[in-house]
């Protein structure tokens, strides 16, 4: 075979080697092999040029040359424009989420967290090339990075970064992703929006806000894992940068690090001295969440009245609760007041047995209803207050108070400068007519958990993170009978056969003509 023929075979091989060298370096990570590809490819192309010089010269000097040059230049220009357009589309993407519940959009929680970052936060993802988890994480990181430039993501090969692996304390089988800022770092186990956002919250809040839970009067326990305890609430508080602790009233003072106090359904009344401590704490700008129960005096009644909230005698009867939960006393919170605690909140909340609250004027206090029940349906009241303990009438006839009924209220008052320490500029009190909604047995029911966390975040001055947790599509069902399934299969078989038969019929008919 002539050299020119060998050259014409070597030319395309050389081009392929040159193109493959980029893949070899990037994907295989082998620079030596890439270099060999480049040298071999360049050599093959040179061999082609040298052995076919005469023919190439003839080609380039004929009339097609002008056209070929114009084509090459215009193709290059178009390619450049396409690359530029795609770069802009990738660098500044605009996305439309057409799903009903906006499942592809990051939650308000995440948006506020990422956009609220004041200093850069580094995310280190340790994955070897080809790990399937890496793709899932990359998709999540891309959505976060689109929100702002304070989040810096680095993907690292753990085998090539042993020093860094040791520094962040990675272990085989443990989490692969670490979020860090300064000296603080948090590991993230699962590629979910909730875990990543919570890690960002934790790492940027180096000092956790402390929420004290009153103890010693039969309140729900923060370390009680039974359905009556509040361990789930405490766990979720940790994700929000809030730490729970029991409140010792021994020395008569509320600890200075208390961001708020929670009184979770006391079964026995507080002592007057304890109420006095709470009153003083509120006057100094402290924050208290009082979760009360119907027919259960707490000793807090005078204090609450001075803050514009009165607990009505009796228990709420809610026809909606009777119908949906088979419990006539399950009060359903369907409406929310105009307040930062429930801004944008549109989930239903359920209170297994709740007292109704009334707003009473109090000097210097700004009190607002937070949650209320349905009032009436078809002209008839569906909620009312039952004052006889143990009874649950099926009609509101004769009842002194009918719906809509307040289930929760919030009150605030400017802190009084006095001899005590000033906790904050504004004392805040949230009163909720039930505590069971926040216990383990009911925490995950509808919007209960979110409402409880919103209250705590508001009290701890973390209002910027009050929002709705991650979304998913509405559930749907499909129950197919054997006949229905058979029908689908029949149609699925007959349609393509019918189309093919139709096509063949037309074809043979035309051939016959």
């Amino acid at each position, binding site marked *: 075979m002539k050299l020119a023929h060998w050259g014409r075979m070597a030319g395309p091989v050389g081009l392929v080697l040159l193109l493959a060298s980029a893949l070899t370096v990037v994907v295989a990570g082998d620079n030596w092999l890439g270099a060999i590809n480049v040298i071999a490819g360049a050599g093959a192309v040179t061999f082609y040029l040298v052995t076919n010089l005469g023919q190439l010269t003839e080609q380039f000097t004929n009339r097609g040359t002008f056209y070929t040059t114009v084509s090459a230049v215009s193709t290059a220009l178009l390619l450049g424009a396409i690359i530029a357009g795609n770069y802009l589309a990738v660098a500044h993407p605009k996305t439309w989420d057409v799903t009903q519940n906006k499942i592809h959009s990051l939650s308000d929680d995440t948006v506020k967290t990422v956009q609220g970052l004041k200093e850069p936060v580094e995310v280190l993802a340790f994955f070897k090339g080809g790990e399937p988890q890496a793709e899932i994480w990359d998709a999540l990181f891309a959505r976060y990075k689109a929100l702002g430039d304070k989040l810096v993501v680095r993907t690292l090969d753990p085998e090539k970064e042993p020093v860094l692996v040791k520094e962040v304390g990675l272990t085989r089988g443990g989490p692969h992703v670490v979020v860090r800022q300064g000296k603080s770092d948090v590991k993230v186990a699962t590629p979910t929006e909730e875990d990543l956002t919570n890690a960002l919250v934790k790492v940027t809040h180096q000092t956790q806000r402390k929420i004290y839970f009153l103890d010693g009067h039969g309140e729900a326990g923060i370390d009680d894992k039974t359905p009556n305890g509040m361990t789930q609430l405490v766990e979720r508080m940790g994700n929000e940068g809030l730490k729970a602790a029991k409140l010792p009233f021994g020395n008569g003072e509320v600890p200075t690090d208390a961001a708020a106090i929670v009184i979770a359904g006391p079964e026995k009344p507080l002592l007057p001295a304890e109420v006095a401590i709470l009153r003083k704490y509120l006057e100094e700008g402290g924050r208290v969440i009082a979760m009360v129960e119907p027919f259960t005096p707490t000793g807090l009644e005078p204090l609450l009245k001075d803050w514009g909230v009165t607990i009505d005698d009796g228990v709420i009867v809610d026809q909606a609760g009777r119908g949906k939960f088979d419990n006539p006393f399950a009060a359903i919170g369907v409406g929310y007041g105009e307040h930062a605690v429930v801004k944008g909140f549109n989930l239903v909340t359920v209170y297994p047995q709740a007292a109704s609250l009334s707003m009473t004027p109090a000097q210097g206090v700004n009190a607002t209803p937070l949650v209320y029940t349905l009032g009436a349906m078809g002209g008839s009241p569906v909620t009312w207050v039952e004052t006889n303990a143990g009874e649950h009438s099926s009609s509101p006839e004769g009842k002194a108070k009918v719906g809509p009924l307040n289930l929760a209220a919030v009150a605030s008052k400017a802190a009084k400068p006095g001899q005590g320490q000033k906790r904050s500029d504004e004392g805040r009190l949230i009163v909720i007519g039930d505590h069971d909604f926040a216990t383990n047995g009911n925490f995950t029911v509808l919007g209960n958990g979110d409402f409880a966390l919103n209250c705590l975040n508001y009290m701890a001055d973390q209002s910027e993170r009050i929002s709705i947790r991650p979304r998913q*599509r509405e559930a749907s069902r499909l129950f197919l009978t054997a006949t229905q399934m058979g029908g689908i299969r029949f149609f699925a078989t007959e349609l393509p056969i019918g189309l093919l038969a139709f096509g063949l019929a037309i074809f043979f008919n035309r051939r016959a003509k």
Partner: protein
Amino acid sequence: MRNTLAIARKELNVYFTTPMAYAAFCFVTVLGSYIFIYCVQGFSRASLMAMQGFYDSTRINLTDLVLTPTLTNLGVLVGFVAPFVTMRLLAEEKRQHTMELLMTTPVRPTEIVLGKFFAAWSVVVVSIGFTFIYPVVLQVYGASAGSTAPIEWATVATGYAGLLLWGGAVVAIGLFVSSRTENQAVAAVIGLAVTFGLWLIAGAASGTTDELAKQIFGDLGWIPHIASMASGSVSTKDIAYFISLMVLALFLTQRTVEAQRWS
């Protein structure tokens, strides 16, 4: 425009009077139905298990678990069928030397390319159109099972939009490949190689830790774009990707056909 439509009409006549179009319809509907039925059976089982408390009932949704995977897999079928639909478009003209005749007519190369493109794209669109029965079936049977809104139609719309855009892109690629050879079989094979190459290239993204390479290779693959649109999320980069492929391939085809005049 008149010439473009005339050429498109002529090609469509050839498609619909030969088994070619019907074979494409048959292929897409047979395999599409198989995939759809497989997903439906799985979902039906999951519904039953959810009712019995073995499965988290809040997490099962017809759009997510049946339609989105079906539409994504239809993209694979479209990528497979389009090279066969387009293989004869220009290769046949060159083999039978009718290209020279076409060049002497007062029809511009752009009109020839666009006319053939629209004809082939129409065949692919009709193939995809037959599968629209799937969401309709789910809507009817899902509603009878008590779901208030069994199907998210907006997601279905974006999924089909993605399929149409991908169909256009892969038809344009097939047309370009057909313009480069006289052999239909070669045109089909190379067209398939390009389609599957663009599928596999996204795998290179997961094989590297270099952020820039990961981004480039990841966005070059078509599956993530189709999957994203089939799940109800449309991004400008998805639309830019498909339109870029279409424009580039059609431009190169036009240049190739134009070169016939010069050679």
